C-alpha cells in the first residue's frame, strides 16, 4: 500500500458527509452534494489507478469526468422547472 492508495482511502472518507447532505437536505442540497461527490470519486479512481499501477483503469475516471458535466447539467435543468 503506497501513499496514493492511502490518499485515496482518506479522500473516500469525504464521501460520507456528502451522503449525509444528499439524504437529509433538500433536493438542491442533494445536487450540490452529488457534484462534490462526483469530483471526489473521480480523484479517488485516479489515485487508485496510479497507486496500483493499472493503466487501464484511468479510462474509467476519464469517462466519469465527461459524464459529470452532462449529468450535472441535466439535473440542474430539470430541477429548474420540472422536479
Amino acid at each position: 500500500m503506497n501513499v496514493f492508495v492511502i490518499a485515496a482511502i482518506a479522500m473516500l472518507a469525504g464521501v460520507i458527509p456528502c451522503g449525509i447532505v444528499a439524504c437529509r437536505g433538500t433536493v438542491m442540497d442533494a445536487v450540490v452534494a452529488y457534484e462534490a461527490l462526483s469530483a471526489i470519486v473521480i480523484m479517488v479512481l485516479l489515485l487508485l489507478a496510479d497507486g496500483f499501477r493499472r493503466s487501464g483503469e484511468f479510462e474509467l475516471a476519464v469517462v466519469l469526468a465527461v459524464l459529470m458535466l452532462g449529468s450535472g447539467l441535466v439535473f440542474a435543468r430539470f430541477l429548474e422547472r420540472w422536479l
Partner: protein
Amino acid sequence: MRSVLADICLALAVLVVLASVVGLLVMRDTYQRLHFVTPVALIAPVLVGLAVLARSGWTESSFETWLALLFVMIAGPFLTHATIRAARIRETGDWRPRRERPRAGNGDQP
C-alpha cells in the same frame, strides 16, 4: 525529492477535500453549500495532478490523469453556475432580480 513533493501535494489535496466536505455538511442552505464545491472541483484536482506528475513524469497515465482532471476543473464552475441558477428559479420563479423581470403582457420590456 519528487516523492516528497508528491506526498505534500497528496496531503494537501486530502486536506482540501475533507475541509470542503465538512463545510458542505455544516452550511445552512444551498447557496452557502455551493461555495464548498469549488475547492473540491478546482484546487484538489490540481494538487492530485501535480502529485501524479511528480511521481511519474509525463507518461500516458499522467496524461490521462490530467485529461480527467481537466474535465473536472471545467465542469466545476459550469455546474456551480447551473445549480445556483436552478436554485434561484425554484425559489423565486426567475433568475433575474425582481425589478429587472419582464412584466406580464408587456413583452420583453423591463
